[in-house]
């Protein structure tokens, strides 16, 4: 995994053997670029790259690509998230080239939440490709320098390609085989679903390591601090594929309401510290949803600041 395939800083950090750090920034439900820039400015020095979500939970927002461009123009390295829900292979390839034209060096391939969760529940979904096939497409465009249709690409996109993994979705026994498939498709880094059930995550990554998968890709553990017990309950009961153990809810319930946010940060910090020591964990993806200002505190407390210069 040591040769660099792109100009991605994230790729360099991971391949140099450092613990990689990413965070994310959800584009606004409007056209004010300042919102993106403000979030980017808050966390830029504390992470190696910033994911920009693509109409997450199927709510219509500023496009991920446009928000990535705003960050890139500030000198921040984005990770372009792309879902297969809204665009066919023409549009996906086109947006990959668009991103590459701004030298956006990372992308994350996802299927995307079903549109019924969002504000366009009556809309069509596309799913011309699935997330694994999007990984294949991006790698093919980069490595073969060709479009899916076979024509040559002038200046192929040099993009470090990632995929998501959810160690907690069902059925559990195919979670590692599914990771193996994503790696076989060309996923160079993996960002996981938010981890609260550490035992289950450790079991998943142990099985992945047993198959040698952690040597073939960089697994970045997904972390989201809880703001309140209400959020924890919502995540447990309403967010598909999320595993929030009862002891997390009990711990948050055990402190006064105005202390719950701090408790949530403490839990997140403790979890990162514990997972830093786990074989196969190459980094962390801190998704502080609409709470970006807390990322610096988390990164400092877990001893991952300052970020490595590579």
């Amino acid at each position, binding site marked *: 995994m040591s040769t660099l395939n792109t100009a991605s800083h994230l790729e360099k950090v991971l391949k140099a053997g450092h613990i990689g750090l990413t965070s994310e920034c959800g584009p606004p439900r409007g056209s004010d670029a300042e919102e993106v820039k403000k979030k980017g400015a808050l966390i830029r020095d504390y992470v190696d790259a910033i994911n920009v979500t693509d109409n997450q939970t199927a709510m219509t927002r500023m496009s991920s690509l446009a928000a990535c461009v705003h960050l890139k123009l500030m000198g921040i390295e984005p990770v372009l998230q792309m879902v297969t829900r809204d665009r066919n292979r023409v549009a996906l390839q086109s947006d990959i080239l668009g991103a590459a034209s701004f030298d956006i060096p990372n992308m994350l391939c996802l*299927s995307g939440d079903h549109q019924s969760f969002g504000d366009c529940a009556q809309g069509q979904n596309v799913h011309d490709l*699935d*997330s694994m*096939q999007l990984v294949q497409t991006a790698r093919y465009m980069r490595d073969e320098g060709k479009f899916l249709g076979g024509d040559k690409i002038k200046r192929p996109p040099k993009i470090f390609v990632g995929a*998501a993994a959810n160690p907690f979705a*069902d*059925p559990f026994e*195919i979670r590692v085989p599914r990771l193996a498939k994503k790696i076989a498709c060309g996923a160079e880094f993996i960002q996981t679903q938010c981890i609260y059930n550490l035992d289950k995550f450790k079991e998943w990554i142990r099985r992945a390591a047993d198959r040698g998968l952690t040597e073939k890709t960089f697994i970045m553990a997904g972390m989201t601090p809880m703001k309140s017990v209400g959020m924890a309950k919502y995540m447990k009961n309403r967010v*598909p594929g999320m595993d929030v153990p009862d002891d997390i809810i009990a711990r948050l319930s055990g402190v006064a309401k105005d202390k719950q946010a701090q408790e949530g940060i403490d839990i997140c910090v403790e979890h990162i510290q514990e997972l830093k020591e786990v074989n196969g964990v190459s980094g962390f993806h801190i998704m502080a949803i609409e709470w970006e200002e807390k990322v610096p505190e988390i990164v400092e407390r877990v001893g991952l600041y300052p970020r490595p210069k590579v």
Partner: protein
Amino acid sequence: MIIAEKKPIEEIIDEVKDFDRILILGCNECVTVCEAGGKKEVEILASALRMYFINKGSEKKVDEKTLERQCDHEYLEELRSTIDDYDAIVSLACGVGVQFAAEKYLTTPLIPGVNTVCLGANEARGLWTERCQACGSCVLARTGGICPVSRCAKRVLNGPCGGSTNGKCEISKEVDCAWQLIIDRLKALDKMGDYEKVAPIKDWSTDRAGGPRTVTREDVKI
């Protein structure tokens, strides 16, 4: 078979209220089996319309007929001699039957009396569920006989997605996760090794994406 469901009576009334001579036309095939457009449903709809018009004080002719099939020239020809007796036909056939009748009788308005829902099966009494989207290029040999195109809400060919929970789909606790079913079946067949074969990017040109589809068979042409 093709699964359909009855349109709301108000919608049908709105479409037929200005006609005086109406034929309710059933079909003896799929829509009879799924109890949306057979002889029985023709009788029920005709009675309901007659009652509606009587209550409104208007005199209308509402006749009933059920053909063996509405997707076949031979049976649709049975209407030829009486077609001019009607100002409009409410067809309770699937969308295929409605269109075939419309193509045959150019000057008679054809009104659909059902919504055509899917290609499905009668899973239990009163429950019909989708099994096929006629994508034109069957993948069932590779997916344990369970179709990810029609039964996965994201038609993920390399699933399941991260939203699969307790065997159910992220869109509803009532909907089975197709990929859970595929995995269960691959296990039963002792073919879990097949799970890690990556499904290639699909050629959707045989699906609706390629435009209206036709099957031509020179060997059976007359």
